[in-house]
């Protein structure tokens, strides 16, 4: 079934729950109300032939309302058609119904979205972190999470006495002081973590320049 046709059928079936549809370069995207996503997905699988879920992803539209979004990419193996669903998730109620009962493959995708954004999937059989370790306190793909990371405890290792340290990020990722003679200054980590060296890089003496 063509995706546009499927959206029409959805409109007839679910009415208000189906939001605006956009088409871009032959890709069809439709917004769906959060409360109805499980039924919509089941209907698309059973009645419209979208028997494969290729991806479930979280999105953080920082500064917008609703802040988060869950995106589903559906594929119909028989008709070779794709359809994209988007569900807005407000920050103060980060819950979406899990679609694991419709497509088993959603299991790990939803765990990843939970791990990276903290979006909880109601009815998921095993909703725990998949990339970061159990007990990690943050959701690192949120836009307000710094790329360098935040200090945290590590449960079982001897890394820095069991701690995660923020990566040194002076002036952006990976900025070695190229062109200086001093090997201390050329080593990026030294420059980033030793405060005196930061000044030395900005104002190197003549001797330190090549």
């Amino acid at each position, binding site marked *: 079934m063509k995706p546009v046709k499927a959206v029409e059928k959805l409109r007839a079936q679910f009415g208000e729950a189906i939001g605006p549809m956009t088409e871009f370069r032959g890709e069809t995207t439709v917004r769906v109300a959060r409360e109805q996503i499980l039924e919509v997905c089941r209907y698309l699988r059973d009645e419209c032939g979208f028997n494969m879920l290729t991806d479930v992803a979280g999105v953080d539209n920082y500064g917008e309302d609703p802040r988060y979004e869950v995106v589903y990419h559906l594929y119909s193996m028989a008709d070779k058609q794709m359809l994209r669903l988007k569900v807005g998730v407000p920050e103060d109620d980060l819950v979406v119904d899990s679609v694991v009962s419709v497509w088993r493959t959603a299991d790990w995708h939803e765990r990843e979205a939970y791990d990276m954004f903290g979006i909880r999937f109601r009815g998921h059989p095993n909703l725990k972190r998949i*990339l*970061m*370790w159990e007990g990690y306190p*943050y959701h*690192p793909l949120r836009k307000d*999470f*710094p*790329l*360098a*990371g*935040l200090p945290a405890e*590590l*449960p*079982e*290792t*001897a*890394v*820095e006495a069991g701690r*995660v*340290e*923020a*990566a*040194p*990020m002076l002036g952006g*990722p*990976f900025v070695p002081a190229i062109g200086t003679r001093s090997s201390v200054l050329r*080593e*990026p*980590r030294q420059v980033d973590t030793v405060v005196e060296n930061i000044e030395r890089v900005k104002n190197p003496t003549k001797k330190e320049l090549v």
Partner: protein
Amino acid sequence: MNRAVEIGWDPKVEGRDVIVTRLDAAIDWVRRNSCWPMPMGLACCGIELMAVGASRFDIARFGAEVMRFSPRQADLMIVAGTCVYKMAGVVKRVWDQMPNPKWCMAMGACASTGGMYRSYAVVQGVDRFLPVDVYVSGCPPRPEAVLEGLMAIQRKIERERALAGMKTGDAKAPLYELPRGPIIVRGEYAPKFRDS
């Protein structure tokens, strides 16, 4: 202070089957020429490590071809790749399972400093939890660079007070302060020092 020891073997003087040496030197010689590596291949550098082991570069020329996937049989850990925090505990546990004496090589930018991954997930250098002996630069390092790193470790082993290390049982034996002379020298010509 232990200066370079003249360890010569001159068949005219000592007969065919006698080598005069120090026990430290003999043990070091044995150890340095049969480093069994633990290939801790965590990312792309691991592929380059395979090239080092294959016939073109042939790490067997340096006595280190016996890659052991059991840490209990290995004495050189080659951390080849990006170590994330989640993996750090595993690497550390593997390291702890290796019997003393043991050595560690950080292969590539990632293992040495975190490399280009300045991010929340990557340990900024495995020396935050392992006692690294040799850092090999490159992304990935050329196989020749890994071999050079291995030779650097061999030069380090060459200088160890192996007996003292056995007594303390530490992972690292204390080193002789000066570079020592060559351990086995055939014939008359014996250079005094080797660069190390």
